């Protein structure tokens, strides 16, 4: 989101959340990851952007939403980059460490 005034940012967020609710998604959480300068200049909608605000919307909904929402956000001139990501399932508790692999056994072809 390239717009500096807070009111306009709020308006954009309100629009997107309403569109999501229309399609039957349940919004769980909305996080503001801050406004920072973009890692590289992004040109979108005939404009070269250098700064932007990052927002993360936590939602639950049917998978058919994804394509329609990407379309909707693509047409919004205030949105620079959009993306949908699945909720990461962290499995770090099972990390047992590096198990030494016996390369010699792998090299010798096992006869069936």
């Amino acid at each position, binding site marked *: 989101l390239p717009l500096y005034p807070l009111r306009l940012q709020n308006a954009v967020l309100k629009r997107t959340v309403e569109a999501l609710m229309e399609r039957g998604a349940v919004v769980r959480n909305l996080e503001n*990851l801050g406004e920072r300068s*973009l*890692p*590289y200049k*992004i040109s979108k909608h005939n404009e070269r952007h250098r700064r*932007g605000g*990052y927002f993360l919307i936590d939602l639950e909904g049917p998978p058919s939403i994804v394509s329609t929402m990407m379309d909707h956000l693509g047409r919004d001139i205030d949105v*620079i*980059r959009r*993306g949908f*990501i699945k909720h*990461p399932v*962290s499995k*770090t508790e099972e*990390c*047992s*460490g*590096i*198990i*030494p692999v016996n390369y010699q056994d792998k090299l010798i072809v096992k006869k069936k």
Partner: protein
Amino acid sequence: SALPWSLCSSASYKKTTHNLNSLPWCVTEQGPSARGGHRPIQMENPYKDPPKKCVLCGINVDYKNVQLLSQFVSPHTGCIYGRHITGLCNKKQKEVTKAIKRAHVLGFMPVMFKNPSFLTDPKICNIKYPE
């Protein structure tokens, strides 16, 4: 004249088999002997070291924390270091690569170089730069 060994019966020349257990200098192979020693029990090595852990073992890798991901990226070209340089296990290397690619696409992390504010981070990868 009759020789002393010819007159005797052949049975008496059979070797007398001694009972091994009775002889004091023979070591028995069955169970606890009089000295009180046991046979060694088969078990796993109790002094074995726990399996080595890589740097990220137990740490959750996220595409949002760019600082952590930037530690596995070259400062000059921005290319991701291989397994032989980072020293991570299979799972974590894959996770880090996927997270870096995702951060590139979504506009969190620069692609062609390393974020200058992260250049003074501690070195994790064992890479030698030419002087």
